[in-house]
Every structure is written in structure tokens, then in C-alpha cells.
């Protein structure tokens, strides 16, 4: 397959991407397999994000794909054959990519982006504790509140060339986006009329009209499929809690697993934990005793 063919196929894959882990990983592996055509493949990612006809849902999925791709690229690069493909390009364009996934006032993807950004920070060894904390706080200032009272829309968020590390810059953008969504919500609460009539589903969820082609709002089908997708993404995020990586070439359990998942994870119980533990065991013992026919203890 030549570079051009690879790029066309890759573009097709991205357009049909679903957030199932397998699907994301397959796409990432395709990209890595053709990493010598990175110069052709990478722009396909940007193209799809900048294409106004592509649904926001798909863009969110592409963002999750980017996370998986970076993840896999780091993993592949343990072999000498690979030299961290895509990573530099993706990192540099990250702020731009983020704004494409979170366009203007449409912040439906904000939580997914936040989760991905958190994971990415680990790879790039960026300490994101402070950002995470700020993300979860109410960040509106008195000045903002005054503006809300005057019903002034939140200023548009644009890219500024701050010369910062692109990841840190992305965090900055995300925090402003978060603030924007808090701001706009309050503004909406303050300045819109309370409706006492029956509200149609269409209006209640601001569903997209069939004739509306602009793509700012989501259709009912899109919302439902998005709920499915988010459920999938949530499952994936939970997976990180239990995944155990084991070497391929060893056919039994290894000391590394013991060290990482048992010895380092387990700590002696506190008094309180211990009491709770003993209580649980006592309850369990009753079940155990009832299991045998003869008296054991």
C-alpha cells in the first residue's frame, strides 16, 4: 500500500470510528503499521476534525482515538523499530485539536477531553494535579458574575501563541472551556424565561431539527448513540483500574506482577479497617458453618 492509499483508507477508518476499545485500538494499530507514511496520515486526522460536516460525536471519538494512538505509540516504541511515531505531531497540534473537538459554545465533549487529557499527562510526565483540582472547582470571578448579570456572552476562546508546552497550553484551554460552560449555564439560568407550558422533547433537549444542516445541535439518534458511546468509554476508563500487563514470552506468573500488583499495592490495615475486616469475616464464618453438616467450630 503506498502512502496515498494508506491515507485514504485511514481517513475512511476515522470517519467510521466507534468508541469501542477494539475499534480504537485497531485504528491506532493501522496508523502505527503505516507510520512511515506519517506525513500523509497525520493530516487526515486534522482534516476530519476540521471538517464541518463531521458530527461532534465522531470528533469526540477521534479525540479518544488520539489518546489510544499516543498510548500505543509509546508501547510500540519499546521496540527499536519504532521511534515514537505521531507523538511529536500530535502533541504540537493538541491545542488546535482540542478547539476542534470543543467548538464555540458547544461543550458536550468537555468531560471526555478532560479524561483523555488526564491520561495523556501521565505519558508526557506533566503533573496535572493542579489542573484537575481547578477543573473541578467553581472558577467564576466576581467580574464574571457581574458580566453574567449584564447578559454579556462569554468571550470567544481563541488559540494564543503562548510558547508554553502544548500540553500545558491545552490544559489552560480546557480550564477556560470549563469556565465558559459554567458561565453560560448561569447566564442561561438568569436570563431565560421559566416555561410553565408542556415542553416538547424537541425543545427540552434542544434536538436538532431535521432541516437544520449546520450541525451545532444533536439529533435524537445522535444523543442516544452518544449515551451508548459514553457508556463504552466509561467501561474503558474502568478497565485501567484492573489491567495487569504480563510479558508475552513467560508462560507463568512473574515476580514483577507480585511486586507491582501485590507487594506495592497492599498495606497493613489500620485499626479501623481491621475491625471492619474481622466483622466481615465473622459474618462469613456463619455462612461457612452453615455449609457443613457437622459442627466444625
Amino acid at each position, binding site marked *: 500500500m503506498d502512502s496515498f492509499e494508506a491515507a485514504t483508507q485511514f481517513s475512511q477508518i476515522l470517519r467510521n470510528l466507534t468508541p469501542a476499545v*477494539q475499534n480504537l485500538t485497531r485504528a491506532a494499530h493501522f496508523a502505527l503499521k503505516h507510520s512511515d507514511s506519517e506525513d500523509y496520515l497525520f493530516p487526515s486526522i486534522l482534516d476530519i476534525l476540521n471538517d464541518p460536516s463531521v458530527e461532534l460525536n465522531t470528533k469526540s471519538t477521534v479525540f479518544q482515538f488520539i489518546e489510544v494512538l499516543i498510548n500505543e505509540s509509546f508501547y510500540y516504541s519499546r521496540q527499536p523499530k519504532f521511534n515514537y511515531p505521531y507523538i511529536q505531531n500530535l502533541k504540537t497540534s493538541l491545542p488546535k485539536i482540542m478547539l476542534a473537538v470543543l467548538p464555540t459554545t458547544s461543550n458536550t465533549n468537555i468531560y471526555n477531553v478532560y479524561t483523555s487529557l488526564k491520561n495523556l499527562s501521565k505519558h508526557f510526565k506533566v503533573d496535572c494535579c493542579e489542573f484537575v483540582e481547578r477543573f473541578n472547582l467553581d472558577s467564576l470571578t466576581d467580574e464574571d458574575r457581574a458580566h453574567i448579570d449584564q447578559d454579556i456572552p462569554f468571550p470567544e476562546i481563541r488559540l494564543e501563541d503562548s510558547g508554553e508546552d502544548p500540553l500545558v497550553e491545552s490544559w489552560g484551554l480546557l480550564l477556560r472551556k470549563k469556565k465558559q460552560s459554567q458561565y453560560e449555564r448561569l447566564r442561561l439560568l438568569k436570563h431565560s424565561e421559566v416555561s410553565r407550558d408542556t415542553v416538547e422533547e424537541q425543545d427540552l433537549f434542544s434536538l436538532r431539527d431535521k432541516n437544520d444542516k449546520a450541525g451545532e445541535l444533536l439529533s435524537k439518534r445522535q444523543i442516544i448513540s452518544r449515551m451508548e458511546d459514553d457508556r463504552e468509554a466509561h467501561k474503558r476508563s474502568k478497565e485501567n483500574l*484492573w489491567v495487569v500487563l*504480563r510479558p508475552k514470552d513467560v508462560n507463568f506468573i512473574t515476580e514483577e506482577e507480585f*511486586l507491582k500488583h*501485590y*507487594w506495592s499495592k497492599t498495606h497493613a490495615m489500620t485499626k479501623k479497617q481491621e475491625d471492619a475486616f474481622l466483622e466481615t469475616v465473622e459474618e462469613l464464618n456463619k*455462612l461457612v458453618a452453615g455449609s457443613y*453438616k457437622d459442627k*466444625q467450630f
Partner: protein
Amino acid sequence: MSVKTPNTHPGISPGVVDSSKSNLTPNGSNLSGKPRPSVTQISRPFFTSSELSYLHSQTIADSKKLVFTQRKHQIFQFVFQIVKALKFPLRVLSTSMNYYQRFYLFNKFEDEEKDESTSDDNELEKDPYVVALTCVFLATKNEDCIKKLRDIQVVANKIRDIDETSKGHNGSGSNGASGGSRNSDSLAEAQRKAIMSLEFKLLQLIKFDFINGTVLTLDSIDSLTIQFCKKLGINYKISMFSWLIAFDIMSTPLCLMIPSHCISLAIIIVTLNLKPSQITTKFTPVEDLSEVNLEEILEGIDCYEQFRCPEPLVNEAIIYILDYYIHQMNYSILNEYIPAIDEETGKEQVFKFMELKSRFNDLTKMNQKSCLKRQLLESDEYLKVWDYSVAMKGSARFMLSNKRRRFSEEIDLEAV
């Protein structure tokens, strides 16, 4: 608890079936007046060794005992490969193996060579590999490591080099397709159907008891063992030795006999008695350099006070573990980590286990008085090969023994 239960109602001794009488269920009979079959069982997750051999005598023919054991080892190896490929923690493996062994307490082990003439839809359900897949599937749910069944199937069939897309599938699944079947499903689809049907059966066999002695309330044996090691201040090397034993023991039927906290403590007691110094580890944390007095730790253990482990159960587990290594040292994972010849005694490792067992001869083990006579075992309805039709045609109810009081109330209502 004795066979008789505290309340005076007949037919409700621990976990005993009350079959074809409908007085225990409010809607036990249907309109035509014919009683619907109805069963109520109280979960008994643990069996004594005599009960286990009795159950096996009903499900595994003498001529198949060897095949069963060999197959079990292959299957567990297969399950481990799945666990590895899907990056599951070991607790998924542990629970899967537990379920697999439980399944063959109540189901006939049939491992026939594929027979073209008898092909039917049930054939797949008899395939131990499909049973194993079902066990993994249910275990992942119970251990909160959710994966789609499809994902598990893909990995499993790849490991066994099976063509999932083959059509007209007719049975055992070991070689994929062969012609002449009425069924036009692909193997993957036929497998899926078999697994869904088996899952419901498996749920009945575990009596919908998700506590199962370990899960949710307690960690699995592997984690619990390390938890206990930390509590006792046992160092890295010795803890690692215990962890290896835990891994070996996970695959044995001991988990059907003894609850996990008692097994974990037994593992630690065995380890401390063996004083393993020759285990090879790559890492040595700093704290390991200072000498720990294993004897002192061992002397200080109080089974019940510190761990709420009833001593007879711990003793039973100790003897089981020692027996396991005496007979199966060569197949164990522990064997991979310790030198073949013990440096101190100059003998093979297995002699250390034998010597230890001889010192433990006079331990008080479990009381099996009511399980020794075949007659008594035969009269225990709980130990009958499970009749799935009851749940299909009538009602089968399951409850945990500590939730029985609710149940007694219901009987009182019936009596009025």
C-alpha cells in the same frame, strides 16, 4: 450447625431441597391443579472432601477420572492464556477455576470424541472448553472486570486456533465445522448461544451465591495472603513464596472445601514452617536486609483472635497444601522459583514437605461424621445431580444461609 435446623419445620435442613412440594412457595401450583415442581435451596458453598468424592462419583465415570484431570489442567492453562491476553487480574482466573470445578460437581463430565451421528445443539454445551468460557465470562462479571462476551470468544478461539466463521456448525467445537448439520449458525454464534444457556445453568449451580466464600466481601486468596503477610510483618521474599503457593492452590478443589481466609492463613503457616531461604527473587527491598524472626512470627499467630479463622479449617487446608506439593511438586509454579535440591538438607524439595507433614500428624481436622456413610450422602438432596427442568417448568429459589430468617417467616405464613 447440625443436620437439624433450629426451627421445627420439616424439610429445611441446611440447603436441602424441598422438591415437588409447593408449600414453600406462595404460587407453587398452577391453575390446572397440578403441582409445579418447586425447589428451595440454601447455598452451601463449601463441601467436605467426602462430599466432593461422592459428588464426583456421580458425575465422572471411573474410566474418565484420568481424562477429567488431564483435561482440567489443559483447560486451566487455556483459561490462564485468556486471562493473560485480556490482561485480567488473577482473581478472575481464580474465580473461573472455582466455577469450572463447581460445574462438574453437578454435571456429568462428557468428553466424547466428536460423533457425527449424534450431533445436536447441546453438543457444544458439553464441551469442557465452552464450559470454561462460560466460567470466565461469569467470573469477569462477578469480579467487576467486564468484557464483552465477543471479546472473550475472539481471544479464546484464537488461542485454540479455531475458525469462528465456519458455518453449519454441529457440535463439540474442537475442530470447527463439519457438514451435514441442520444448524446454519457460524461457530461463533453457536458458541455464544451455548454460553448463554450454560451461564444460566452455572448460576443455578452456584446457587446465585455471589459471595461464594470470597468475592466482594473478601479479596481472593492471592490478595488476601499478601494482606495477611503485611499484617504479620513478613518480608518480601517470604511473602512472594506464599504468593506462589496461593497461585498453585487456586487451581485445586481446596477452594470448594475451605473459605479463602482459612486457606490464606494455612499458606502462611506452611511457608513460615518451611523457612524458605532459597527462593530466587530479582528485587530485594531494603527492609528485607534486616533479619526477621520467622519462628517468632509463627509462634505469635492466633488463628481465631487475629484472623477469625476456625482452626480445624486451617488445619485441613495445611494438610491439603502439603499433600499437594508432595504429589505434584513437579507441576507447580513454586518449583520454577526454588532450586530442585534443598541446599541445607541436600535432598529434593519434596522431602521438606513430607517431613513437615509428619510433624503435623496430630492436627485436629474437620469433622466429617455425617459425610462418611454413603447412605447419608445419598439422602442429602443438595448433593443430587441438579435438575435444570425444575427452574424451567416450576420455580427454583436460592438463598444464603444467613438470610434464612426471612425465609422462616414465610413458612410460618404458610402454616397458618
